[in-house]
Structure formats: structure tokens, C-alpha cells
């Protein structure tokens, strides 16, 4: 099983798999990055290195742009600046120990990440969380979706030059984080769920807090819309920018609001229902043109739909246990499982291979941001520099998730 030369590397049938050579993949890429003959600026084209230190790349994304004036001739994403080897860490931790690590991938939607992981392991163990735990999970996950969309909206608007929405969305996101903090003591990396249910019973007054939030949020969402939806400059900056057709989006594996804005009605909560989502009544908003404006509208509507789900869930929390019967030491039978959920950014999947021990043999994450980012090049080719920023913002990427 273990290669003597590289003890950390997994083998397949005793052989080390061929890994793509990083240098050769760059050489065959669509950009010709050889040094120009002249040391100074060339008048024909310009290679602009956007990031990893850049205010609008949402962390440490590096985009190499080939420009003709302001026009983008090609892009190349360079990722990995935030690589922490999360998947490798999983192989050296027990199933329970690894649970907090997933919060650090998409740190803007930690609850959703935790839900996906817990469910995947539960599926592997063939257990199901009790109904009460499922309701709590749905409420917290939908609150997290709202918080994630609010953070996206603020930063996206800031990228396009509107400073003010950022502060409004952060003000309202704070209310959600307060509920998280009261529930589990943490605001961002919550570690809210456990394999088999929830560790914590809801605190007294949880329902009241959530209901207060349900009354508080809709006028705030209207407020964001008042700032942006009909704003002329906002329309000009987002309409017909970064258009991706449904066919291309499916071909590239794009998921989440980016896919739905192109007109594909694909939401895992409806398509492959997990938890108790099938019990709730909600719509899946879809766009028509697949441009940045549609993605904005889809996410705004998703916020409202999340509120609808929360409202139904908070009024129906049943009594009962919050933990299923799960052994103290989790030792799933050998086998493999793929389970995906609809995270705020798209399909978040976990592929776990168990060899019967207490630690996963291999754990692979399918992060939505990473896959969605592949569409960047086809969306910005021929556009202007300012559109690149708008399109990066519209993906709602989190580099912690892209690089893992």
C-alpha cells in the first residue's frame, strides 16, 4: 500500500499513479508566457499578473491576463496559494477528528461544509440523523446560505465599485452569526454538526431568535435591491457580462447559482433531496441569459427562498433526540461513498473510501468554487479588464475551498 520512496503517496494496485507535470501543463496552456524579447513594455500585448495580492481576487487567486489594450485575449488561473492539504489530513485523522477541518475549506459557509461531510459519513455508516436534528440542520444550513449570499453580494458590489452595500450586508449577516454564536459558540468555523446529528440541543429562545430574523431580513433584502437592481450603472456593468450558455455550463461542470442563472433548473435540494428538504415548499429561481445580472437576481431570490424554508422549518421542529445511535469509535465497513449537497456556491460533494479502519483511506472533496472557476476563461475572453473583476466576483469563489 505504501510506496517506499514517497511514503505519503497513495498507490493504485501497488503502482504510483502518473501525476500531471505542472510545468508541462502550463506550457501547453492557452497562454504563451515566454518572456518577451524586449525587456520593456511591448506595444502589442500586455501580460498582466492579477493577484495573488489584489483587492478583487477574493483572497489569493492569481489570474494571468493577456491583454490587448483593455481587451482580454486570454486568461490563466493559478491556484494553490492557500493549499493546506485538507484531503491528505483526512487520511491521518479519525472520521470524528476530521469534522472541524471541513469548516476551514469554505470558511464563508462552514455550516454547509459540515453538513455535507456529516451526511457523507452517515451514509457510509448507514445511519440517519433523527428528525429533530434534521430540522435544526436545515435551519442552520439555510441561515448559512443567506449569510454566504450576503457576503457574496457585498464583495461583488464592492468589486464593481459600489462600496456601500458591503456594509449593509455585513450588518445583516451579523444577525445570523449571532445565532450561530449562541448555538455553538463560534461564528465562522462553527463545527455545528456531529456525525449522526447535532451535538448541541438548541438553546432556549432559538426559535424566537430565528423568527425575529425572519421578520428582520426581508426588508433588508429589499434594501439591497433598492440600491442595485434598478441602478443604471449596475445594469450596464452586469448585463451581458460574463455570459455562459446552459450547454457550456453543463459541459464545464458548473453548478449552483451560476448554472441556474443559465436556465438549468438543477438544485440538489430538489433533484436528489437530502435531509428533509423534500418536506419543504420552495422554488428554485432560474435565470434566462446566464449573465452576471441574472446570477445576481438568482441569488437574491435564493435568499428569499431560504427564508421560506427557514420559516417552515422553525415552525415544525419536532421533539425527540438530536443524535442517532452512532458508535463512539466510527469504523465504517470497507467501501466507498459519494454524497453531495447544495452548498451556497454549488454542488459540494464528498467522496470517501473506507478500508474498514477508523480513518478514511482516501477523502476527496468536490468543491463548487474550484469547478466553477474553470468557466472563467470562456466567460471573460474578449471582454474588458473590468469585466474580469465582475466575473470573478459573480462566481462567489472562496479560495480556501478552491485550494483546500
Amino acid at each position, binding site marked *: 500500500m505504501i510506496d517506499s520512496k514517497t511514503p505519503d503517496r497513495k498507490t493504485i494496485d501497488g503502482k504510483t499513479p502518473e501525476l500531471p507535470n505542472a510545468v508541462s501543463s502550463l506550457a501547453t496552456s492557452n497562454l504563451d508566457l515566454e518572456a518577451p524579447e524586449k525587456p*520593456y*513594455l511591448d506595444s502589442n500585448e*500586455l501580460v*498582466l*499578473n492579477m493577484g495573488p495580492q*489584489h*483587492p*478583487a481576487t477574493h483572497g489569493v487567486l492569481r489570474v494571468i491576463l493577456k*491583454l490587448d*489594450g*483593455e481587451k482580454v485575449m486570454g486568461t490563466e488561473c493559478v491556484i494553490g496559494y492557500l493549499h493546506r492539504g485538507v484531503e491528505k489530513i483526512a487520511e491521518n485523522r479519525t472520521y470524528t477528528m476530521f469534522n472541524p477541518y471541513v469548516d476551514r475549506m469554505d470558511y464563508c459557509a462552514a455550516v454547509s461544509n459540515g453538513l455535507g461531510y456529516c451526511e457523507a459519513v452517515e451514509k457510509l455508516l448507514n445511519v440517519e440523523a433523527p428528525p429533530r436534528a434534521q430540522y435544526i440542520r436545515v435551519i442552520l444550513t439555510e441561515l448559512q446560505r443567506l449569510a454566504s449570499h450576503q457576503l457574496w453580494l457585498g464583495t461583488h*458590489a*464592492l*468589486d*464593481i*465599485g*459600489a*462600496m*456601500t452595500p*458591503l*456594509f*449593509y450586508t455585513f*450588518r445583516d449577516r451579523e444577525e445570523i452569526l449571532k445565532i450561530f454564536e449562541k448555538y455553538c459558540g463560534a461564528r465562522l468555523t462553527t463545527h455545528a454538526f456531529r456525525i449522526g446529528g447535532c451535538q448541541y440541543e438548541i438553546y432556549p429562545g432559538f426559535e424566537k431568535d430565528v423568527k425575529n430574523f425572519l421578520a428582520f431580513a426581508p426588508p433588508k433584502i429589499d434594501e439591497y435591491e433598492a440600491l*442595485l437592481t434598478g*441602478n443604471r*450603472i*449596475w445594469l*450596464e*456593468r452586469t448585463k451581458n457580462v460574463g455570459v455562459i450558455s446552459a450547454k457550456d455550463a453543463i459541459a464545464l461542470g458548473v453548478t449552483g447559482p451560476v448554472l441556474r442563472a443559465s436556465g438549468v433548473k438543477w438544485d440538489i435540494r430538489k433533484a436528489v433531496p437530502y435531509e428533509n428538504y423534500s418536506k419543504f415548499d420552495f422554488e428554485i429561481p432560474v435565470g434566462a441569459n446566464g449573465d452576471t445580472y441574472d446570477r445576481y437576481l438568482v441569488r437574491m431570490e435564493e435568499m428569499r427562498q431560504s427564508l421560506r424554508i427557514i420559516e417552515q422549518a422553525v415552525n415544525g421542529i419536532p421533539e425527540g433526540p438530536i443524535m442517532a445511535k452512532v458508535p463512539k469509535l466510527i469504523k465504517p465497513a470497507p467501501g466507498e461513498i459519494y454524497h453531495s449537497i447544495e452548498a451556497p456556491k454549488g454542488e459540494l460533494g464528498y467522496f470517501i473510501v473506507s478500508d474498514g479502519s477508523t480513518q478514511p483511506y482516501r477523502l476527496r472533496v468536490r468543491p463548487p468554487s474550484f469547478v466553477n472557476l474553470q468557466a472563467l476563461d470562456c466567460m471573460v475572453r474578449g471582454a*474588458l*479588464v*473590468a*469585466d*474580469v*473583476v465582475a466575473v470573478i466576483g459573480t462566481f462567489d469563489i472562496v479560495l480556501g475551498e478552491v485550494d483546500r
Partner: protein
Amino acid sequence: MNALMSYLDPRVTATPGSAGNELWALIYVFVIFAGVAVIVLSMNWLERKALAHFQIRLGPMRVGPHGLLQPIADALKLMTKEDIVPADADEVVFRFAPVIGLLAAFTVYIVIPFGPSQAVTDMNIGILFMLGVSSLGVLGIVTAGWSSNSHYPLIGALRSSAQIISYEVAMGLAVVSALLMTSLNAQGTGTLSMIGIVQAQQQQHIWFVFKFFPLGFIALIIFAIAMVAETNRAPFDLPEAESELTAGFHTEYSGLRWSLFMLAEYAAMIAVSSIAVTLWLGGWMHPFPNWLNGPTWEFIFSLFPGLTFGGLALIAFIGTARMPSHPYFKIQRAGLAIFAVFLGFLALLLLAIAVAGHANDASIAARCREGVDNIYWFMLKVAVFMYLFIWYRATWPRYRFDQLMKVGWKVLLPISLGVLIVTAIVGVIFG
């Protein structure tokens, strides 16, 4: 003796192209430069505070009461920072570029008429001089962007040059339509002199913004849009678009040289606002000079400067009273109280000038009163525009480059051309 006395006469002579009186011109230059520097510092504080309150935050609160000393702290920090010149930069040009911008922004102040006798000089080509010199500022930006030898500044500089050239056309046409209005008198001769333009509005008993309504108003709107683009402010701040070009043309600048760009930007904002005020909003005149005239109204209007400062002092006093009584705030309370007393003293001084100047129409006190009035009303109108600059910045997203060009050439230019033609026709028929 006469020659000596003439040096003490603060009036601005209308001799073409010459600084009216060397001694007073020099004094005015110092006063204006010091005044603009102070206004820029306070604008810095005001913008951060106003923007913060738009965005439900507090803004600077630590340095001095309500962050009043923040601009000074910033200035000290910038002055003590290392002045970095990138290794591959064209060093001479790189060092000189901010100075060009600053010179252009400050030179225009010599023709700004704060009052009929409160200007350094009264050029007969005043408005042309002003437009010409203020557009030299782009030279500073272009040289800064080019000499940095770096990609972001280069793109910022290119954007800036294209933008300023495009918007200057619409701006110039709007200005011409206002100049046409100055010629609607008995002699049929207009003027380019900044003081002359305000006096023309005085003679025609109308601010040009209301002349041939809505023609003057549309021209002012066009100018107001173009001047935002001209000074690279949001939503036209593409040359320094933070989310795209990190900091645009001044990416590679640090410390004092960077602060010179900021100084030039704010000085240019005040300068273009002054043009708008001079051309359309009656310059130094108080509101409704036709209806509300006579000694009583003059006296009431002359109380305004004092009352304004009195109001500010009152706000500062209330702020002092509302501060927490915790000993931690002792120094802050004292600081704000001193500031309030200072404002109150200024208010009393201005009120005293108004009362003393009211009695006699030829005394020094009367002249002081007149000067204070003129400068006050002029600066108040400018302040409205400065507030609008901050408001725009808090409200709107940024235009994309091609959309910016579209707005400049396809929207503003035709409208301003149309306004010019219609103004000319209407002027011939009704003028």
C-alpha cells in the same frame, strides 16, 4: 505716496493679464494656498466621516475627538514614510509627476473669484486659463503612470488621458453656452473674465442656472457630470479603480509623493466646483439678490457666516456634553471643548464684523464684512458640490471604460451641443 497707497489697495485691477497689485497678489497667493491646504485637510476628514455615516459606520474616532486630528496624523504618517522609487522606474519623471499634478491644481486658484475684489488677478481670459491649466493635471497622471514602468499604473494612465480628453469636450461646450449668456447685454459683448461672468449675472439679475430655463440648468448638469470625470472621482474613478487596477496610476507611489496626488485631487475638485459656481450659481452673490436686497436684507445675510460657525460651535458643544463621563475620555472631552470654544470665538468674530461693518459703508470694517460675505457664499456653494462628490462615491458603482466613453461621446456631447445651439438661437430671439 499715491503709489504707496495703491499697494495697500486690496482691489483687484482689471488690467488684462496682469496681477492687479503685486503686494496684495502675493498676500492672496499665500492666503489661498494656506486656505486650500486647510480645506483639503478638512475635506479629507469630512469625506471619511460622511462616507462612514452613509455606510453605517463611525469613521475615524480615535485621533482626537471624533477623529478631528486624523488628517494631521495621516499627514505626519505620510511624511515620515519611505519614499520608494521602483528600480525600473524613470526616476526623474517619477519624482516630478506628482509636482506637475499639484502645480496644475493649485495654479488655477489665481483666477477663482471669491469676491469682486477677493481674487489674485482678474484675467480677461480667466475661464480659458482655468480650463487649460486644470486639464494640465492629466499630464501629471500620465507621466506618473508611464514612469512607474508597471502595468497597473500604465493602464490607469491610459484610461485617464482618454477619459479627460473625452469629457473636456462636453465640458467646454457647456461652458461656452454659459459664456454666450454673458453677451446678452446692451453692447452684445460677452466676457471670459471670471469676475466679469459673475458681474454679468449681477447685471442680468439672474443666475445663469435659471437663464432660459431649462437650458442653463441642463448645461450645469452636463458640467457637473463632466467635472466628476475630470477629477477622476467615483463613479468615473477608472484611472485609480481600486478593485481593478489596485490603485491605478499611483500604485507605485508611497509617502509624501502619494499624498501630493491626493492633495492635487482634492484641490482640483474644489477648483472645478468653483468654475460651476462662478458660471451658473452666481459666484459670490447671496441667494435671491434681486428680491432680497436693501440694507436690512444685506444685514441679515451678513449674519449668516457668524451663525454658521455658531451652529458648528453648538454641535461641538453638544458633542462635548454627550461624551461619556468616563475618565478615559477626559482628554477627548477637553479637546472637543477647546475646538467648540474656537468655533464659537470665530462665530463671535464674524458676527462682530457683520455688526461693525453694517454701520458704515466706507470703513475697513465694512470692507471686511463684504469680503467675509463674498467668500462665505462662494464657499458655501462650493461645499454643496463637494458634498455631492462624496454622495456620488457612496452611492454608485463604477463605470466600465467603454461605457464611460459612450456616456461622454454619445450622451453628453450631443446634449451639450444641442444646448449650445438652442441657447444661441434663444439668445438672438429673446436676448
